């Protein structure tokens, strides 16, 4: 009697931890989740537009790669996303929740724009680029240092601290936009130095965004090496896995936290430099455009491996551009792209569960077995 009562309570699913999962299997699950997400999105797109989903995906492809110019814009935005992701990777590997990339990018952008505005006519156009690079890096580094310092010193909650730093940076940007507005009363800065292109990236190999690609790809390799093959990178992963272990083996945890946040902020500052000098040639509160949040997911899903990050950021930018193309062609609001990206992220995040855990349905038990 007791036993039967016990049996009834057996749950429908039984979940147990997976040990080692071979790489091909993990990737098969992830790609399966992505495909499933695309199918679900196709249904949603169909229910909104009543169009053949396959055609819609074709349209998306055209939106991202249809013309040479579009392709380069897609590449440019991928590089931007990737650059922020590279900045976040060291911090996240240390389990420091740096939600503040948005702000770090903005202050980097402000520094670049300030150089473009105030140094114009005082030096040559080639000499200003390195100065802008350094200034943006410093600005981002300061923005990363502040939460890092207080985390190390007093153990403040870094998620909310960095988040608040975003909003402080946004207000700072509004301040400078109001200060530099051009023409007067427009409440935008407009394209800075549109006539002589002072402080703009020069075209490389005839490509306007060539320099963006070079800078970011160099960073990809640097960060990969830094995280995997240097002593500092090793310290970061030890602190991330267990602070007590780190302390036990003589790592100065506070120093590592502060140092890593400076690096993280500095790279995000470089992303601001790319956004202002290499892409938009203007500064506004939407210069970062929510990328600081999107990239957290990119960095997380890629497990902080910079080469995998290239994949994920291209995927996200492709989806974004494609969805925007659908939106403009079928007169929908741009925001449909965020909705689709959100759904796809849910699926990819959820797929991790099926990599880490094993799910078994309740066994149909036979009575005589236990008796």
């Amino acid at each position, binding site marked *: 009697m007791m036993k039967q009562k016990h049996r009834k309570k057996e749950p429908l699913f039984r*979940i*147990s*931890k997976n040990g080692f999962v071979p790489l091909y299997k993990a990737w098969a699950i992830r790609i399966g989740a992505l495909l499933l997400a695309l199918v679900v999105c196709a249904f949603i797109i169909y229910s909104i537009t009543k169009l053949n989903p396959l055609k819609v995906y074709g349209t998306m492809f055209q939106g991202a790669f249809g013309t040479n110019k579009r392709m380069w814009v897609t590449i440019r935005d991928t590089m931007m996303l990737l650059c922020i992701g590279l900045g976040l990777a060291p911090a996240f590997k240390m389990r420091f*929740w740096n*939600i503040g990339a948005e702000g770090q990018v903005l202050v980097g952008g402000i520094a670049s724009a300030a150089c473009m505005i105030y140094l114009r006519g005082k030096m040559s156009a080639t000499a200003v680029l390195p100065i802008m690079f350094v200034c943006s890096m410093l600005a981002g580094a300061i923005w990363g240092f502040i939460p890092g310092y*207080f985390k190390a010193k*007093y*153990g*403040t*909650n870094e*998620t*909310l*601290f960095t*988040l*608040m*730093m975003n*909003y*402080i940076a946004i*207000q*700072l940007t*509004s*301040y*400078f936009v*109001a*200060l530099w507005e051009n023409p007067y009363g427009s409440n935008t800065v407009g394209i800075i130095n549109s006539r002589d292109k002072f402080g703009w990236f020069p075209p490389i190999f005839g490509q306007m965004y060539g320099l963006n690609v070079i800078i970011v790809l160099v960073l990809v390799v640097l960060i990969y090496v830094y995280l995997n093959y240097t002593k500092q990178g090793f310290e970061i992963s030890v602190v991330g896995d267990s602070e007590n272990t780190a302390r036990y083996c003589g790592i100065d945890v506070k120093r590592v936290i502060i140092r890593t946040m400076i690096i993280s902020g500095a790279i995000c500052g470089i992303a601001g430099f790319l956004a202002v000098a290499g892409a938009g040639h203007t500064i506004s509160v939407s210069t970062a455009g*929510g990328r600081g*949040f*999107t990239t*957290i*997911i990119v960095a*997380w899903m890629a497990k902080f491996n910079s080469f995998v990050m290239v994949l994920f950021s291209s995927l996200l930018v492709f989806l974004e551009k494609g969805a925007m193309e659908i939106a403009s062609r079928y007169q*929908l*609001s741009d*925001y*449909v*792209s*965020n*909705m*689709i*990206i*959100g*759904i796809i*992220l*849910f699926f990819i*995040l*959820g797929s*991790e*569960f099926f990599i*880490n*855990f094993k799910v078994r349905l309740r066994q149909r038990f036979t009575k005589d077995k236990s008796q």
Partner: protein
Amino acid sequence: MNQFISLFQASIVFGTVILFGAVGEILTEKSGNLNLGVPGIMYLGSIASLIGVFYYERYVENPIPIVCILIALVCAIIASMLGGLLFSFMTITLRCNQNVMGLAFNIFAGGFANFYGGSLNKLAGGVGQINVLATSAAFRTKIPSYQSLGPFGHLFLSYGFLVYLAIFLAFAISWFLTRTTVGLNLRSVGENPATADAAGINVTKYKYVSTCVGAAISGLGGLYYVMDYMKGTWDSDGSIEGLGWLAVALVIFASWKAPRAIWGSYLFGMLSWAYFYIPELTRSSQEIFKMLPYIVTVLVLIVVAYQHKPDNQPPNALGLPYFREDR
């Protein structure tokens, strides 16, 4: 005096939005679930109530105020609970990282709300914005003849009923958490789920219910935002997202105590509107003033961490997934 009254009123209206968000989030976080998706939940609550009421007002000649209110409330609560359910499923059952899931949820819900908000604006007739006047008026119905009480009436009685509901909920949640057995169980789940599990508390159930109910309360913040703060219109400038994040910050500010969130939220409101009432500010220096609430939050974060009082600490297992077979 008049200036002060209008600043006070503006702060309470502002504060109520984030108070709902914060009270819901306190309930959620007490179960150990850190829902960073509060802005997204607010988005869902606001757009759902707007859609529901929009269709009601469109197809009925003379909308009845009480029906308007009921439709808006039901829509907001259902939508935000569904949002909370999705979040719970992903983080509790599938054990995703809560921070990452919260951020992804914000991207989705922001896109969802702005997409339908934009469509509604278009449906409402092109250039003009959608405007659910009757419902917004119903939500802003004030206590009759409050003006006869002079400044007191203006300061404390000149609001719609949701303002008082928010205060009531804050006290109710606080009572529930500290004075009832179920509340005690809930807190134990947030402090140490393994111990709670061993004591026979259904951890999964507690987490699910508190996250969904918390989301419903946060969603009311979205409802209040769209019906009172925005006066029944939709604007896709993302200001509700900023308010949602402030609500998350307010939870820390109040150190997980709902009654403290009440005055905290009004303080945030006052700081956010201060620039409006300080004479002779240029447009650029106004922007500097708008930083105030965020800077104050940062200072509070530092002070709370510096004091390190055991009373003011977050639930011990906050943000951690629970799996029974883990050590």
